């Protein structure tokens, strides 16, 4: 089973991102689960959402303490919270950032595990006209983990955004293209 923790801020569509991962995974025939962190976070406050993907029925209601994947939608978050907290040794950190690999590794408090980076904010502004990166980062997620076929994510976006899906899908494919993966530096 793969456990995913998403990081963002209230109002940035973090929960939607987690939901889309689960919807797409289920379309693909996998088992999946997605849930927000149940808290009264307000717009702007750091917030988390979670997803699980497996090839058999998922029978756990626990929170996620040791994720395999962390997906960080907001580049400034690592300054406030330790986004890599509890991340498995074999895990991968996927960040929206325009910084270089080394700058990010230091920014994450000397993180030497597997890393995937994409400037999702730039893509989102260019494709959607808004710095909302929740759909763009799905492209980074697929590239970095290969857990879901992109066509299922595309389908999920169409269902969810209807007319507005087009721009989100473009951003998705750009992120798929532009995400760079760096194996553990150690």
């Amino acid at each position, binding site marked *: 089973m793969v456990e995913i923790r998403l990081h963002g801020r*209230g*109002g940035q569509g973090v929960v939607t991102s987690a939901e889309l991962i689960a919807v797409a995974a289920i379309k693909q025939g996998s088992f999946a689960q997605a849930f927000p962190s149940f808290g*009264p*976070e*307000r*717009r*702007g*406050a750091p917030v988390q959402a979670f997803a699980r993907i497996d090839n058999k029925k998922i029978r756990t209601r626990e929170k996620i303490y040791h994720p395999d994947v962390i997906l960080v939608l907001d580049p400034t978050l690592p300054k406030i919270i330790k986004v890599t907290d509890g991340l498995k040794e074999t895990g991968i950190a996927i960040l929206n950032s325009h910084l270089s690999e080394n700058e990010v590794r230091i920014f994450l408090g000397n993180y030497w595990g597997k890393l995937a980076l994409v400037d999702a904010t730039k893509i989102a502004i260019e494709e959607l006209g808004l710095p909302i990166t929740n759909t763009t980062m799905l492209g980074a997620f697929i590239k970095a983990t290969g857990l879901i076929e992109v066509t299922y994510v595309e389908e999920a976006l169409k269902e969810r955004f209807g007319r507005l899906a087009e721009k989100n899908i473009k951003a998705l494919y750009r992120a798929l293209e532009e995400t760079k993966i760096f194996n553990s530096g150690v």
Partner: protein
Amino acid sequence: MRPELKDFKGFNLKNLPEFDGFAPGHRACQGCGTVLPLKLALKVLGPNTIAVSATGCMEIISSPFPYTSWRIPWIHVAFENAASVASGIEAAIKVMKRKNKISKKEKINIVVFAGDGATFDIGLQFLSGALERGHDFIYICLDNEAYMNTGVQRSSATPFGAHTTTSPSGKVIKGNITWKKNLMGIVIAHNIPYAATANPAYPIDLMNKVKKASLIEGPTFIHVFSPCPTGWGCKSEDSILVAKLAVETRVFPLYEVIDGKYVINKLIGHIPVDPGSLGKYGKYVLEKKVTPQKPVEEYLKLQRRFRHLTPEQIKIIQKRVDEEYERLVKLAEYFGIEE
């Protein structure tokens, strides 16, 4: 004129009390227009105040254990009973003073902060009871026009046409189909000594009204227009602008009802730009020159909750706003205070 107000002098930007009963570090959204009037009210009421909150945004953002933003005694019991809890506190203070269990010297303000859901809907009966019994307390309804804490569900304070998650703008039904409940009408029918509407875009006016309410003996009520960028879909920096437009388009007129006598507050701009006139602005009594009424569309277009409205619906809203303002003007003429 109310005896308690005979030497009441209004506030201005220079003579504001230092004290803040509300502390920073609260969890309200960026640009919250509901916590702003709360902060201003507590600044006026001062340390000798006991606050009661109903369940709602302001209670949640101010009291996530172990943190509290309340620098004064504060109690939150349930969603609908803030007015009754306040009645109990007021009765306790009265009898304990009489029995010399607490000092008679200072007056202790008792203030309720409750949202529109807590006041217009679930707590209306409790409010009516407390007003009717004549308890000496201030009830401040911070009205952000929907159940914001639970995620923007419709309340009876939600305006006509507005999108909320339970009055969505659908293909067939375009947003909220009812008109905002006239709570002031209901409150005034209780013949309480003081009721007023207030708006954070006019902070001095708001603070003056809270001060008056605290001076007046008996139940007083302030209906505060409280913008919510998250719920209304406007930019957080526009909270004040949206609030100002609500007054300038007469969607939310500012007025006071003192012993049943209506006074419409006519304000010049919200804050005159040139500092020279600050003094003049400070003088509370109103200028005759009123900001000309703006079309309601200017107010509506800044908010995503109204974006789906058809020109036809906007016309209906404009007509209703004009009618209601006319009615208010007549009330002021007929029941107004002789200047």
